[in-house]
């Protein structure tokens, strides 16, 4: 095998590993417990063919769903570092090593530039399987650089959020990423470049309380969890069960914090329409 072939295979393997979508022959829905074949699931945009439950997928799955074929990944070289020597039950370094190995991802967010029905778009998409999609310095920096890229090239930005919140192992640095990303987004707003915030399951904590809620358009996948405090924390605070449907996308739409909810099968068309509207002048 020539080096080029090996290289190409290597990249393909890496990309396949990076995806979060389930693998195997059969899929049992965690919502309705019905079984379908993986082929059916995949052809149905990784939604349960029986109950339309949106199975959790990763950044590269979204890139494939939204972009017209090819896309160029940006800022892949940025990776986290345990600069605080943070150790709980495990050193942060070890958690990072494990996450890199297990996911093949550089961090909890990937940025790519591509086209959607021939219109350019930059997407920054988060991965829950990388330390719970937590936001540390790398997530903040990649979003900041994506914004700079959009400013320089006048390209709209879409961020796909999927996060348990801030990365505790980077302490106040992760907190400051809320300020950093929000402050950078004001530059896009001032330049008149649209920012689409797409919230997926789950979006909580510091991510919700910064860039995820700041879209010119905020939209979400059906049924996904969106909140500031996690449901467990709220339950412990109020000492009773949470109401049915609390903190779902539908709940947020009803309370005025989302523009709309979109089924995954219509995602590309929706993004394409948004790009069309904002592109007309």
């Amino acid at each position, binding site marked *: 095998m020539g080096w080029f072939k090996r290289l190409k295979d290597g990249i393909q393997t890496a990309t396949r590993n990076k995806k979060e979508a389930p693998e195997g022959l059969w899929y049992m829905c965690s919502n309705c417990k019905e079984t379908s074949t993986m082929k059916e699931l995949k052809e149905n945009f990784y939604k349960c063919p029986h109950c339309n439950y949106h199975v959790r997928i990763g950044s590269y799955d979204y890139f494939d769903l939204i972009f017209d074929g090819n896309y160029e990944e940006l800022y892949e070289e940025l990776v986290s570092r345990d600069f605080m020597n943070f150790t709980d039950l495990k050193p942060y370094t070890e958690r990072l090593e494990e996450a890199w190995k297990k996911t093949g991802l550089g961090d909890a967010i990937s940025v790519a530039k591509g086209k959607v029905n021939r219109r350019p778009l930059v997407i920054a998409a988060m991965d829950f399987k990388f330390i719970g999609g937590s936001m540390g310095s790398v997530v*903040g920096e990649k979003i900041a650089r994506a914004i700079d890229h959009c400013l320089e090239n006048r390209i709209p930005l879409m961020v796909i959020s999927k996060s348990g919140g801030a990365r505790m192992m980077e302490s*106040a640095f992760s907190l400051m990423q809320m*300020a950093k990303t929000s402050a950078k*987004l004001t530059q896009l707003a001032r330049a008149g470049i649209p920012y689409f915030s797409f919230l997926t399951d789950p979006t909580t904590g510091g991510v919700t309380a910064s860039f995820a809620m700041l879209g010119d358009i905020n939209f979400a996948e059906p049924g996904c969890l969106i909140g500031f405090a996690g449901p467990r924390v709220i339950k412990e605070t109020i000492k009773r069960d949470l109401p049915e449907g609390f903190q779902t996308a539908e709940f947020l739409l009803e309370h005025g914090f989302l523009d709309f909810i979109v089924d995954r099968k219509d995602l590309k068309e929706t993004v394409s329409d948004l790009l069309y509207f904002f592109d007309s002048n």
Partner: protein
Amino acid sequence: MVFLDFEQPLESLYEQLEKIQQVGEEGDVDVSEMVRELDNKIRNKRKEIYSNLTGWQKVQLSRHPERPYTLYYISQMCRKFTELHGDRCLRDDKAIVGGLGSLDGQTVMIIGHQKGVNTKMRQYRNFGMANPEGYRKALRLMKMAERFGFPVVTLIDTPGASPGLEAEEHGQAEAIARNLFEMAQLRVPIVCVVIGEGASGGAIGIGLGDRVYMLEYTWYSVISPESCSSILWRSWDFKEQAAEALKLTADHMFEFGLIDGIIREPVGGAHSAPEEMAKLLKRQIKKAISEVQDMTPDERIEARINKYASMGVFDVRPSEVEGKE
């Protein structure tokens, strides 16, 4: 007086002092020499204790029940102050207060978390945990300050934004995010000081500014040591370790370049000499305003955004192919 666990040696010295003073009052024995000696002992002991505080002990100090809160500092710093209430939408949040004040003739908009001074008031103030209405009131006041060119001063002291059904229904996350967004572009100077607890989104929701300071015995972190312990250690018993691991003290934050300075507290903490603390706080706030006041609004905003954009530490890996596999 309330003594924290690490202040126990002080407590017994104070008890001795009290007894001797009582003896002095009752009889004709001259106790002045003994009193002087004990006073000295207390002063030295306090210095010794306070020169060696752990992260967790500073967290305890930041929560000291006698610690001064926002409204106290305002009353000391401003000859005139008019509190302004309400978010003009839903209600008046009691955990964040704000209003127009005068700092030696300079009108400023002062906004801060407010904790209660007794059991009843602590409940009334929701323990300093603001709801979205509090953040929206803060934003309303900041936008007013912007219209009239008043510098904004925020005093941060919260165990976190309120976690509850209503807070979620009313958009706690949106309220905090909106404040960060608007504060980044506010055309007047913003000076922020952590005067007690700086917990997470609830703190930074009024904490983005041109200059950010911390009082010496305060903390600033993405999560409280207790919650961090419960999540990462899966038990509430590791708060001391969590406090160390989080590196949440003013010294750490300054070393990391995440704040612009530390305001030293009197030995014994802000509560041991609140008037002196208020003077030190006021001096630093005035100095900070004067440092940024002469910039144009555009220059100031650019510097502000650049400051936050530079926060973060990471590695740059050569390339995917040569990399980890």
